[in-house]
């Protein structure tokens, strides 16, 4: 099999195994897998295959807004990954991005064509800054980026809550005041074609991010040197590349993608800043998206859609009596199977060899 073919086939096998395992768990706990798959189909298409109800385009809108942030956090993880870094920091970067978006949305007054770009840029800058910390510590002190980025997630959570609760003074301990219309990605047109879903212009920055990711990684000298550092640090250093600078820059750009996800959620899906009791899992979703998508823009797009579909099916499954957490279980098992892909490949190869041998035997 060609390398390209394998790169598509192995994740697909992992996805399939993940769904099979999920169905088995559903059966083992006495629930109906058919209801689960019906919920999934309704979750992304709005078509109800069990009950006779009219097509509801609202679900499509909600499906797209579920996929948008995790595509961005997926890009964040993948970008760092290409430089050989394992960053779990997207969650925190997203949160400071969201905080920066909230700050600019509430404090700046300007017409929409200035205000909205400012909000997006602020979130990108905040995410990049948050990503720079583990990058800098890795480059300068060789501290492992996994631990630091996880710590930064918790610090971001508490920083966010501190600012939202104490500086913007929320009334109900959860939300800030509503943002002015000029700061929002909201679109009455998109809402009207999806029967009042929360669909918004956020998909435009997401598509731009996908293109920029692919361009930097594949088409620029800078992207090449980032990948070189990912393959072999020492060789790149020997070839005269600035390894430490690349590590910091890579983490910053990764942070920028995740920061953007923060504003896409905050001024797109919502229109107020929020204090949170715990992280919402967009960071971990992003890791899953990037791993399944093979750290490439096109793969991340499809994987983001897949997991966005699982997310939007969650409330539907819950209403069918299937605990919503099954989506997380399926997602985690898909990642686990993707991690095992070398093992799966070995099994496939062995299976093929056996077939070849038996075919030879028949001929003889």
């Amino acid at each position, binding site marked *: 099999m060609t390398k390209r073919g394998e790169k598509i086939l192995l994740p697909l096998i992992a996805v399939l195994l993940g769904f099979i395992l999920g169905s088995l*768990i559903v059966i083992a706990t006495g629930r109906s897998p058919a209801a689960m798959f019906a919920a999934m189909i309704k979750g992304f298409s709005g078509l109800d295959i069990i009950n006779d109800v009219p097509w509801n385009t609202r679900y499509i809108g909600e499906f797209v807004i579920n996929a948008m942030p995790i595509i961005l956090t997926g890009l964040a993880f993948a970008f760092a990954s290409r430089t050989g870094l394992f960053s779990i920091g997207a969650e925190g970067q997203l949160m400071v991005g969201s905080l920066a978006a909230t700050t600019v949305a509430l404090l700046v007054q300007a017409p929409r064509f200035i205000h909205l770009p400012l909000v997006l840029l602020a979130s990108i800058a905040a995410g990049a800054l948050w990503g720079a910390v583990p990058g800098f510590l890795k480059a300068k*002190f060789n501290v492992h980026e996994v631990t630091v980025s996880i710590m930064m997630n*918790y610090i971001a959570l508490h920083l966010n809550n*501190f600012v939202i609760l104490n500086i913007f003074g929320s009334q109900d301990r959860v939300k800030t005041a509503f943002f002015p219309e000029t700061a929002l990605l909201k679109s009455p047109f998109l809402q009207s074609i999806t029967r009042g879903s929360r669909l918004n212009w956020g998909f435009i920055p997401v598509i731009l991010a996908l293109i920029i990711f692919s361009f930097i990684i594949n088409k620029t000298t800078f992207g090449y040197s980032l990948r070189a550092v990912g393959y072999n640090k020492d060789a790149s250093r020997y070839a005269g590349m600035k390894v430490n600078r690349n590590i910091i820059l890579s983490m910053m750009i990764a942070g920028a993608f995740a920061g953007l996800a923060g504003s896409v959620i905050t001024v797109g899906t919502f229109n107020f800043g929020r204090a949170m009791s*715990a992280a919402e899992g967009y960071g971990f979703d992003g890791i899953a998206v990037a791993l399944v998508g093979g750290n490439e823009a096109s793969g991340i797009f499809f994987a983001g859609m897949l997991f966005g579909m699982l997310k939007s099916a969650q409330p539907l499954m819950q209403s069918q009596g299937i605990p919503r957490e099954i989506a*997380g*279980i399926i997602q*985690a098992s898909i990642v686990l199977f993707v*991690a095992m892909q070398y*093992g799966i490949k070995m099994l496939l190869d062995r299976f093929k060899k056996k077939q070849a041998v038996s075919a030879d035997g028949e001929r003889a």
Partner: protein
Amino acid sequence: MMVGAFSAATVTVLLEDSTALAPWLGLAAGLVAGIVFSLLHAVASVNMNADQTISGTALNILAGGLTVYLCQIIFRQQRTRSFSNGIQKVTVPLLEKIPVLGRMLFIENYPTFFLAIFLVFFTWILVYKTPFGLRLRSCGEHPQAAASMGINVAWMRYFGVMASGALAGLAGGIMVLTADIQYTLVSIHGTGFIALASLVFGKWNPFGVLGAGLFFGFSTALSFYAKDITFLASLPGEFFYALPYVLTIVALVVFAGKSVGPKAAGQIYDSGRR
């Protein structure tokens, strides 16, 4: 830890009415559940050559999903039912009479504290003072050399993963049965990752880890008592919630260069490599 905590809480809740030993049976359940769950990691990384960081991350996501899923199946809500009694504090006779130390450690303390201290000594003896420990460490330093001396590397790695699963499952059980009233998705809130930092901070030595653990415990406890200390009370609560994590990063930066982990940690064992 999440799987251990969930199992411990569930067993405690379900057996509470029938036996007074329920919390202890809960702890045992947490330990066993930790081992079983860690087997997934062992299969993935030892047999299927999975990247250990990725498979570990996947298991962390899986633990969150699976435990709450089972809560919904068993208790019809996103957490376990709350138990009325966790592990009770005890006063150790005789030892309580020791001045200062007696009051600090042996009056009204959780017995699990002594268990943890015992395990530190036990681990140290097992890893550094027995032939088995030497073999275990050799597989972490240079598995190919270990294999050439007739050590079964795969089995050793299985043992290592299962032992760590047992300890983490026990830890989750202890955490939920002493500091919580039920298991929820946020019961464990990143303690496993702080443990990872303690390992680096404690230079991969059981006693170093004990010291690092006490240090992080102190910084967490500080957030509870800060409001009673005048000069700290004016700082916002969020500052103290974030403190353990900030301190972890500081500790990592200070101790990073000097920490010496096993050379082959995190690597896939390839018997053909030199």
